[in-house]
């Protein structure tokens, strides 16, 4: 017959106690390595010579404003292009089976973990001075085309790391489409374009927004690609970098970082509120 423990000494931890211990390392690390630094960042941005005006400078100072506009523009253009490309390719891949399909899909998704620097290098190989495209162009037309170091090159680079991210989400969403809806539309006389416009794209809407927001946030925060391509287009991450390392303008760098962080976080929060799951940008 088992003996009963007297209600005096609690011999070991209740589950609540264990949970607290289990969370302690996390709490310490998150506070020391993230919360504290972030708070400091926000503070530094607000306590320089300009005070809180540093944050306003993002919009008021022409240089920063131009950078913000070009970054947002680039990110938006990348997102739209990536979505369009991923939709065409995604619809095709999800609805047709053929030998080599898995290989094609692997090719389209493998750049997922490439750091931005490598992506920049890829663009140089394609469109730089010794690039493939320049080579082909000079053989065909006698004129070498080099555009890696211009806005087109940057755009291509951003596209390079955005397509794999977006295409996986789109393909997953296409898989979940209900074929009965398209069949119903066709029985009512809708041609292929109408079916796409009225049934497929609206159904893919949430996936567009979710993956689009991720792509946008990633593009906004991308640094390595612009760094490698060393263009004279100053995207916001590059401005932050130069402010910090070259101009030692820590206040501005901090303020810009906070601004950039807010924009990226806001678009991801937006995507999450629609998709109901957690999403992440990286790169």
């Amino acid at each position, binding site marked *: 017959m088992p003996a009963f423990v007297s209600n005096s000494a609690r011999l070991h931890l209740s589950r609540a106690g264990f949970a607290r211990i289990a969370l302690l390392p996390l709490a310490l690390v998150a506070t020391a*390595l993230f919360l504290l630094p*972030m708070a400091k960042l926000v503070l530094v941005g607000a306590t320089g010579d300009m005070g809180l005006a540093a944050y306003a400078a993002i919009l008021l100072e022409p240089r920063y404003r131009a950078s913000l506009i070009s970054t947002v523009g680039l990110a938006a253009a990348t997102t739209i292009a990536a979505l369009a490309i991923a939709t065409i390719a995604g619809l095709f891949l999800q609805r047709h089976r053929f030998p080599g399909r898995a290989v094609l899909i692997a090719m389209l998704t493998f750049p*997922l973990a490439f750091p931005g620097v*490598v992506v920049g290098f890829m663009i140089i190989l394609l469109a730089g001075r010794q690039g493939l495209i320049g080579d082909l162009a000079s053989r065909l037309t006698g004129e070498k085309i080099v555009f890696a170091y211009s806005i087109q090159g940057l755009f291509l680079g951003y596209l390079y790391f955005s397509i794999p991210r977006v295409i996986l989400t789109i393909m997953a969403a296409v898989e979940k489409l209900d074929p009965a809806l398209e069949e119903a539309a066709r029985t009512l006389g809708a041609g292929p374009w109408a079916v796409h416009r009225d049934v497929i794209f609206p159904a893919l809407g949430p996936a567009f927004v979710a993956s689009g927001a991720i792509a946008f946030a990633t593009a906004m925060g991308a640094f390595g690609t612009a760094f490698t391509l060393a263009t004279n287009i100053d995207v916001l991450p590059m401005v932050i970098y130069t402010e910090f390392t070259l101009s030692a303008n820590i206040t501005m760098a901090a303020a810009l*970082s906070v601004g950039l962080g807010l924009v990226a976080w806001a678009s991801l929060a937006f995507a999450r509120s629609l998709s109901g799951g957690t999403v992440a940008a990286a790169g």
Partner: protein
Amino acid sequence: MRDRLIVAGQFLFTALVAAFLIVPAILSMLAGITVNYFRGIASGFTLQWVIQVWDLYSETIARSFLVAGAALLATLVIGVPAAYALIVRGGRLSRAVEEIITLPLAIPGLAIALALLLVYGGFSDFRRSWLFILAGHVIFTLPFMVRAVMAVLATIDVKTLDEGAASLGAGPWRRFRDVIVPNARPGILAGALSVVTLSLGEFNLTWMLHTPLTKTLPVGLADSYASMRLEVASAYTLVFFVMIIPLLVAMQLFADISSGSRSQA
């Protein structure tokens, strides 16, 4: 007939996009083992560039593995118990904690690095050691481990299993060891793969945090792109691919197995 054309067009388009993504990668791998990229394959194959990369960057590559391994260890020790505690507690606090640790994924690496520098830049010993890099990597990779483990724990109703083991007399540590960890294994493995892959490839954070003595592989890549000839940069990229692609394949296979789906050929 028109349908066939459309399908063919879509196939061509998709193939073109795939080519856009893969051709430069193949080019870089080739360039890394070609004698002279400008003259192309005709100039012959060689390993001299790879050897040169090894001479120049072996220490950097080793350091990348060190950081990745240490990050893995840290995220295991910190993340697995935390994931268990969050799932078992549930409620608003858990959701808030989850939000907070996922924040580093939303904020650009640059910003996080800057923040770390502002707070810890003054501790010169710490700031100059590879531990500083590790700190950034841990913050960045921790959410992946925690979420991977939480995802698996959520599907196996860990709360009831925990209560079941408790009703049989097992204390919290015993339960964690006998029931929770073995059943969380797929999540732990998936998380581990993610952490290592992400750490090896991390650049934005590391570039801001590094010193000439604490470079990692991607930092070395950036150096080589800027200052080395194309063949050497390509050889270095080749080394990176050789390291990272098996990991990516393993992650993809793992995702397929654990989600029960198989990609159709």
